[in-house]
């Protein structure tokens, strides 16, 4: 098969050279089709890597305990918000299969220093937050145990928030207002970057106990995060049993509907986002495939025109000894070559465009990833050649069937 093609490719090449401008126009459909498949799948893959990177940022051993049973949705329902108590955190802190246990509360608040006012996310945490999530403090200190027990009104700023409020001034020791309460700044975080969902550098961190008392007046937590020591699965099971015991839930059959909490692992999160991005990629690819089919029909149309325009050439080729099969194969090879070369150009421009998009996107999302979907590249080059063969077949058959005498007389 390959050998047959290599025999006809030089012939096809001469014919393509004969009609360069028309050939390029014909290729355009394939170029656009393949180019958009490559662009879309590459952007899709970039987005996937970006989102997966965000989720995987904290390491595979991190688990999140959220209020509400899994039946009530991934992040729990509003009515279940108060199920996770501070006492749960205190109990989990004591078990040996979890470490870096971090309680969470978060809400959006107005942060003020002198005339600077910003709306941002204020996060209530404990001292474990930096080690649980691989963050570190740039200057000053983070929340410590004493802050927690005595509900100190101290705050640690994300680096961007520090810049916004204080410009180049050293914020440590200054007092800011969060909502209406004064907080003393004790530290500034290193640049942490962000991900698809959060911008850590714009956050303000305070002791979770202080937040419960001064800002919320509640005793529950939104989330408890922790790292599992040892086997992830058994760690999750043990954690569930501890919370069931604390919440007096009798659930030996492990029916998730009976629980009033849920544990989310990175593995689950990766699965969910992987599925979402697969669906998106299929969707985008199927749209782009339509332009491939349109391109193929364009090739068929041009090949028909080409066959009738070149009737005399076909007659001549037959006169100098081309068999019907030779002519058939020549025109099929020509169509395949046109679409394959169009495919290659499409791949190159798709990759080039993906890179341009990447350059633009990183202006807004610095952690965006440049990725090429190589499966899509290989698949679309094969498909584009197949399209040429498929749509080139009927015009080629018509050329092959031409009677040499009539073909030579054709004006």
């Amino acid at each position: 098969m390959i050998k047959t093609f290599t025999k006809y490719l030089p012939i096809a090449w001469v014919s393509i050279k004969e009609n360069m401008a028309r050939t390029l126009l014909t290729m355009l459909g394939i170029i656009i089709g393949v180019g958009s498949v490559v662009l879309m799948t590459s952007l899709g893959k970039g987005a996937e890597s970006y989102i997966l990177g965000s989720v995987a940022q904290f390491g595979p051993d991190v688990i999140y305990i959220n209020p509400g049973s899994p039946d009530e949705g991934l992040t729990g329902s509003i009515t279940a918000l108060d199920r996770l108590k501070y006492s749960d955190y205190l109990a989990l802190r004591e078990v040996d299969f979890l470490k870096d246990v971090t309680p969470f509360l978060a809400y959006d608040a107005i942060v003020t220093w002198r005339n600077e006012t910003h709306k941002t996310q204020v996060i209530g945490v404990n001292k474990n937050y930096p080690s649980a999530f691989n963050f570190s403090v740039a200057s000053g200190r983070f929340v410590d145990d004493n802050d927690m027990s005595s509900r100190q009104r101290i705050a640690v700023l994300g680096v961007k928030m520090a810049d916004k409020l204080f410009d180049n001034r050293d914020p440590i020791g200054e007092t800011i207002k969060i909502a209406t309460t004064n907080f003393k700044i004790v530290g500034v975080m290193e640049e942490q970057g962000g991900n698809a969902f959060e911008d850590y550098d714009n956050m303000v961190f305070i002791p979770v106990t202080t937040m419960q008392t001064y800002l919320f007046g509640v005793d529950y937590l939104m989330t408890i995060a922790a790292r599992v020591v040892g086997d992830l699965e058994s760690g999750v099971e043990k954690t569930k049993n501890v919370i069931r015991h604390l919440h007096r839930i009798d659930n030996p059959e492990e029916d998730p509907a009976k629980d009033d909490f849920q544990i989310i692992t990175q593995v689950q999160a990766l699965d969910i986002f992987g599925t979402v991005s697969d669906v998106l990629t299929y969707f985008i690819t199927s749209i782009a495939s339509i332009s491939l089919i349109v391109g193929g029909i364009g090739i068929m149309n041009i090949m028909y025109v080409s066959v009738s325009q070149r009737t005399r050439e076909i007659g001549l080729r037959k006169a100098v000894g081309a068999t019907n099969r030779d002519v058939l194969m020549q025109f099929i090879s020509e169509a395949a070559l046109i679409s394959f070369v169009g495919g290659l150009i499409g791949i190159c421009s798709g990759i080039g465009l993906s890179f341009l998009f990447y350059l633009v996107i990183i202006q807004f999302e610095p952690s965006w990833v440049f990725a090429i979907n190589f499966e899509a590249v290989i698949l679309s080059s094969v498909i584009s050649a197949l399209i040429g063969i498929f749509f080139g077949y009927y015009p080629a058959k018509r050329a092959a069937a031409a009677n040499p005498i009539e073909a030579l007389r054709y004006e």
Partner: protein
Amino acid sequence: MATKKKSEEHIIEINNLKKTYYTGDVETPVLRGLDLKVKDGEFIAIMGPSGSGKSTLMHIMGFLDKPTGGSYHFEGVDVSELSDDDLALVRRERIGFVFQAFFLLPRATVIENVMLPLLYQKHSHGHDMAKKALDSVGLSHRLDYLPTSLSGGEKQRTAIARALINAPSVIFADEPTGNLDSKSGKQVMNIFQKLNEKGHTIILVTHEKTTAQHAERIIHIRDGLIESEEKVKGRINYSDGDELLK
């Protein structure tokens, strides 16, 4: 003429050859039972007014068309038994065509045009063969020209080189000088005579008396039958003192 190698064997033997075209219910007989023998190495001209069937006869002899009756033996083989692919093979290996309208591919160079027939067979020395063929028609200085930049005579000589590249035993020339001025026409006919001397059988179709006078024998066709044939007396021959061909 004495040096020319002549075989008494007939390369072409046609008996009672008929060709009828059918358009719906209308029958149009073009060849109506024609007999013709051509010796190997002969140079014949087929003459006749338009519609006489001379082109159809040439097409059948050149394996481009099939007769509807009678028999055609080429090199002793009954052509009616050959498949389409066999016919293509014979055209490829045994025959060369030269047409009035040249039929060169406009954007392929001279040498690419000459090499066209080689695309359909296995050849490793195609380029050398094409150069040699172009050399023999005096065009070795035009290898990489495009046909559009050639004169009519040069175009036809390119077409002759293309016909030559397979070392055919028979060359069919359909009005080869029809589109040429008289000087180019003479050159082209001169080349055919040289090729004939080298042993190629030449079958020329023309309606011009002077062009036909280059052949050894003239067959007159009228209404699909051979009307008469004549040995050419006082044959035009340029081979003395012509420097075009080596």
